[in-house]
């Protein structure tokens, strides 16, 4: 060490054009200046072109009336553009929140099916995965919309109305929904409190389990506490929400949520498409669990269900979580394909606004920003989760 330091101080520094320290700084300066120059150039082109064509260069257009209606909602065309963008984001979320649990369950089942000891089940799962993985998701969406949902449902004159709860026809699809009454805000507060309480109970049960070894049953405790809050709150506040059923009067549907066939088509298509990718992840993760674990479970005489539930799957999911969340992100990004069949999520809303002559660059920046915000926050979540779930190995 000392010798090295001495020789270093002893020799003269090389000329600056060969000095690594100087070169590093120069290279970074060049890269930084180049990027800034490129952005500045594009930006100046943008403002020049926009002003030349008389298009606004700021975000003031967001307050102008949107001029479009959204099927299946009470959105009025006189409401400002910012409102319709928010509605689009809400609709995207409506897809994601329902879709992710569904595709996880379906994908896990198929992934397990690919490793079944039953030859037929294995082949069926393989056929499912190999078929769906290799066709474009957009095609699946258009197909479910035109050939499955619209073609298999009856005309509105002879609509199916199972249990008087649904109205199913190829023009409109309607399901029951809640309408908010008095005190709905307070009820939402109670529900939030229920979530907090159930998390607290969950932690308490886990600590109890760690300390004494009594079975924690934290899932039942947590759900029970939440349900308690939900039920008690419902009766104490006095019907904060009521169920609104869709009813068919002539050719018009009132009540419930109607006009959601596009929603169902996108949901169905993306769930079955993404499930094929999830199945491969689940299969790979199960195979990545050390074989000794299965053998140990067999040696303990666990049933095949117990082996899967308590030994293999918990370890497999630890491996599967990063790629799984990646698939959830893909699902969210693919939800933009709903644009092709007219479900008003954020991309379609932006597309329509551009079609109405609103400035495209700003709208696309907002659109990308919305997706980016979502993706980056999920990425952050993955990193935190990964750090917590990583096995501690020395």
């Amino acid at each position, binding site marked *: 060490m000392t010798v090295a330091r001495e020789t270093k101080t002893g020799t003269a520094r090389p000329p600056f054009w060969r000095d690594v320290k100087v070169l590093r700084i120069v290279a970074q300066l060049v890269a930084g200046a180049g990027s800034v120059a490129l952005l500045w150039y594009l930006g100046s082109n943008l403002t020049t072109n926009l002003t030349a064509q008389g298009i606004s260069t700021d975000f003031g257009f967001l307050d102008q009336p949107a001029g479009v209606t959204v099927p299946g909602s009470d959105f009025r065309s006189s409401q400002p553009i910012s409102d319709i963008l928010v509605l689009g984001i809400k609709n995207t979320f409506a897809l994601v929140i329902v879709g992710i649990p569904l595709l996880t369950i379906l994908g896990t089942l198929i992934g397990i099916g690919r490793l079944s000891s039953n030859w037929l089940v294995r*082949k069926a799962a393989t056929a499912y995965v190999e078929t769906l993985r290799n066709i474009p998701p957009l*095609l699946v969406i258009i*197909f479910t919309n035109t050939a499955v949902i619209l073609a298999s449902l009856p005309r509105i004159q002879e609509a199916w109305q199972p249990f008087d709860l649904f109205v199913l026809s190829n023009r409109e699809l309607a399901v029951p929904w809640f309408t908010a009454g008095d005190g709905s805000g307070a009820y939402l507060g109670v529900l939030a409190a229920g979530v907090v309480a159930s998390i607290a109970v969950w932690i308490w049960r886990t600590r109890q389990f760690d300390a004494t070894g009594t079975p924690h049953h934290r899932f039942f405790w947590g759900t029970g506490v939440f349900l308690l809050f939900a039920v008690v709150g419902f009766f104490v506040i006095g019907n904060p929400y009521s169920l609104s059923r869709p009813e068919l009067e002539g050719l018009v549907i009132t009540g419930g949520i109607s006009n959601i066939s596009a929603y169902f088509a996108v949901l169905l298509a993306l769930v079955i498409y993404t499930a094929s990718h999830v199945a491969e992840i689940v299969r790979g993760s199960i195979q990545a669990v050390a074989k000794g674990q299965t053998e140990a479970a067999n040696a303990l005489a666990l049933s095949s269900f117990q082996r899967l539930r308590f030994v293999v799957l918990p370890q497999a999911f630890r491996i599967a979580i990063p790629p799984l969340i990646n698939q959830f992100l893909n699902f969210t990004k693919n939800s933009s394909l709903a644009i092709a069949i007219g479900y008003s999520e954020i991309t379609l809303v932006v597309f329509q606004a551009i079609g109405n002559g609103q400035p495209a660059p700003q709208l696309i920046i907002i659109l990308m920003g919305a*997706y980016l915000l979502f993706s980056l926050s999920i990425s952050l979540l993955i990193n935190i989760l990964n750090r917590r779930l990583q096995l501690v190995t020395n």
Partner: protein
Amino acid sequence: MAVRTETASLRRPSPALRWVRENLFNNWYNSVLTVIFGALFIWVGFSLLRWVFFRAEWEIVRVNLTLFMVGRFPRDELARIWVSNYMIVGAIGLMAGAATASAAAAAKEAGLPFVQSKLQDLIQRFWPVLLLVAALLQFSRTWTPTIMTVGMVVIGVAARFAGLHLPRVIRRYAWVLVALLLIGAYGALVWFGGFGWDDWGGLHLTLFVTVAGIILAFPLGLLFALGRRSTLPLVRLLSVTYIEFIRGVPLITLLLMGAFALKFLLPPGMDLSLVSRLVVAIMLFTAAYVAENVRGGLQAVPKGQTEAGQALGLPAWKVMRLIVLPQALRAVIPAMVGQFISLFKDTSLLVVVGVFELLAVSSIANNQPEFLGKGLAEVTLPFVAVIYWVGAYTMSRESRRLEKKLGVGER
């Protein structure tokens, strides 16, 4: 115990019966599943066959076959496409032949046995493509495509033979010939009063956009991958920002940008055609994913390789160029095939911004007066799906084969 084994061995079932028992009826719930799934298989298989051979009205595909293949490419200029295809097939054959010859030579030098792939293997590997081509030719109403396809096969085989028997000196420069042929294939469509991207369509356009997208994206992706692995913090930051930004947004937002906003970013007066702008958007999108693939390859190269290079006194760029990159890029080939597949599938999004690709043809065919309102999307969409499926499935199997051959993932 002993008695039971004896009776079991006395009534040893035939191998087939044993297979059935072990794989289909090894316990009660598997037996139930077998019955359910067996019924499902029979029902699905039966309805599928009945639909394909009796129910489906293939007339719409027959009438519009040319539209599906080449879109609105002027009909009396279709010869250009055949010439271009011949050149591509010739290039592929030449490349395959030359590659086989060099591999055989290398194996001989190293004293290793060299197994040439047999025709039977090729059929096993590419059966979906062969079936698709047969189906497409069957849909055609004239003999021209069949004759032309046979011609393509002949040219391909001849080119492979030529590549195999090129003198060694010329073989080293076979890639120049291949590149010239590929440029010629593009030129046959565009030069001499030909037609640019915007007049192409159908499967032809889909394939060209995919190939162009991946070729254009590769250098950019390589740059960003190197940037992300750089020791310079600012360069790394810029690369990470770009990659994560692009990976965080759906392709369709970039296509919307290409269609509606890119023209504002270009200098005033400069104009690109719609398809060219969209290819730029696809390139920007794919580059981020290519960068991540290449980064994976770079990380797979052991650190000792770099250190050995440094110990030899090579400058940093030579270490990268001569030692790290060749190994990294080899490891990246399967992932790049995967990228190619996903881009191939993603080109279907071009229909949203009004490009005449396969899905657009499907909806146009359904709106023709003689087919309007007949619900024939049930025919055209599966037809398009099969085309995509054949391409993606074959390539994914090839990529898995390559992965095994290159020993990636086995360490």
